[in-house]
């Protein structure tokens, strides 16, 4: 190897989670090197909508991580220049129910969330239009979640990387990790890339959808799988959709295990003008081909929620792959199987929102502090090793 670097921690993956991990590690005083085989935000981050949500999470460890992350996002946004440069908007989420049954379920869900620390305000049918003047008539009601926010994910990742570099981290894009280096006793001692070895006693796996492959390089299994999603983007509009607005069945889809296509309308405006329309979920591997039927369902759902959108033009559609683990919780924290290996991946469709909390917790365990949240539910070794016929 022509050259080698030495640092305290190598973070693999310059998406949103890697960027936040490098930022909090650098601010905790660690020398961090962030590597990615592609550009910044080249994977799931660049194909996301930038949701910072508590509304879609039931009480439990993921909601706790979302609440912690939301506070950290607000702190970052309060730093000079950050909010504008990442298009941070604390606009709130509005979940609507079409009929009385759905509303009852939604109210029950919100009541449980309240007891876990979520702000959730019931909105009567008659008040929906005060919040969203263009939303469909005849809905049964909804719940407003003021803590829901949004960032532009690629900008957020790139700006957090920039802040991390200001704090002393360095960035290597176009560097593919080909090997996780380990000592004779099995502990991590760095990574190998075509441009040289990077020596470090700690490696953070923030490789998103490819987190399983990176884990395998370190000799452990982590069953991260892709779940494809499409997003539709409209022509630029004045602010007609004020919140992130979605139908109550979205929550069921997020938690579902089904491989079949699921779509539930999620509609939101952006600072730049276009309206973004999600969300579809399919387990089709890394198939990048365009699917007109999926975008058709998205359009149908969005126009039901906001009838004015029928006249608005879709300018483009893009797709991405959410990295998910079988129980829909991310892997966050040290891997007991390999000393020095840490995981920060498998956030499914919530990685932008959960990035700050994840990065913060990773920095805490890297510096031997007690993490703010119990990491037991996020243990990377919680899944059984794959049986031979299932593969990995």
């Amino acid at each position, binding site marked *: 190897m022509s050259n080698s670097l030495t640092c305290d921690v190598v973070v693999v993956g310059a998406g949103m989670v890697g960027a936040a991990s490098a930022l909090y590690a650098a601010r905790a005083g660690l020398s961090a090197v962030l590597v990615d085989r592609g550009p910044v935000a080249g994977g799931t981050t660049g194909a996301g909508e930038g949701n910072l949500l508590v509304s879609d999470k039931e009480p439990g460890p993921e909601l706790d991580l979302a609440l912690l992350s939301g506070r950290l996002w607000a702190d970052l946004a309060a730093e000079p220049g950050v909010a504008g440069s990442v298009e941070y908007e604390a606009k709130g989420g509005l979940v609507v129910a079409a009929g009385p049954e759905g509303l009852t379920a939604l109210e029950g869900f919100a009541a449980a969330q309240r007891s876990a620390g979520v702000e959730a305000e019931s909105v009567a049918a008659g008040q929906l239009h005060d919040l969203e003047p263009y939303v469909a008539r005849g809905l049964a009601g909804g719940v407003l979640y003021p803590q829901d926010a949004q960032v532009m994910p690629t900008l957020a990742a790139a700006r957090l990387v920039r802040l991390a570099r200001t704090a002393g981290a360095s960035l290597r894009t176009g560097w593919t990790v080909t090997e996780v280096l380990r000592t004779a006793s099995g502990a991590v001692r760095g990574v190998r890339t075509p441009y040289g070895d990077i020596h470090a006693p700690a490696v953070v796996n923030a490789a998103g959808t490819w987190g399983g492959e990176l884990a395998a390089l370190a000799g452990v299994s982590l069953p991260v799988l892709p779940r494809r999603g499409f997003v539709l983007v409209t*022509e*630029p*509009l*004045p*602010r*007609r959709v004020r919140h992130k607005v979605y139908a109550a069945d979205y929550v069921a889809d997020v938690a579902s295990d089904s491989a079949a296509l699921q779509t539930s309308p999620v509609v939101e405006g952006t600072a730049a*003008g276009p309206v973004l329309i999600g969300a579809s979920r399919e387990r089709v591997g890394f198939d990048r081909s365009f699917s007109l039927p999926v975008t058709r369902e998205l359009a149908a759902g969005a126009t039901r929620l906001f009838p004015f959108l029928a006249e608005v*033009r879709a300018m483009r559609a893009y797709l991405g792959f959410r990295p998910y683990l079988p129980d829909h919780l991310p892997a966050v924290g040290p891997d007991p199987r390999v000393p020095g290996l840490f995981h920060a991946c498998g956030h499914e469709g919530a990685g932008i929102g959960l990035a700050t909390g994840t990065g913060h917790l990773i920095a805490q365990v890297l510096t031997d502090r007690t993490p703010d949240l119990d990491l037991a539910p996020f243990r990377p070794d919680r899944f059984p090793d794959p049986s031979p016929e299932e593969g990995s």
Partner: protein
Amino acid sequence: MTPRTPMRLVRARPEPPFTVTFDDREIAVLPGQTIAAALWSVGVMSWRTTRGSGERRGVFCGIGVCFDCLLTVNGRPNQRACLVRAEPGDVIRTQEGTGHHD
């Protein structure tokens, strides 16, 4: 010598013109002309302002690809002047920003 014009070049004998309104001003249009051609022939070269800095824009690519010549026709925003043929009585308006208003 009579000055050369596109009409003379192709020995055009156009059908009688009709009128449309452009920002409340009446202009004469030859049948078959696009809105962009009609505006050019009365010396109007821009009819849109951008949503960022408010720059004036008109035809650029002339074949429907660049979307710089957007305007509002009969209340319908974001129409490409280089593609849409003018029809008698059309109400055509310059367009600001997104073309949508609240």
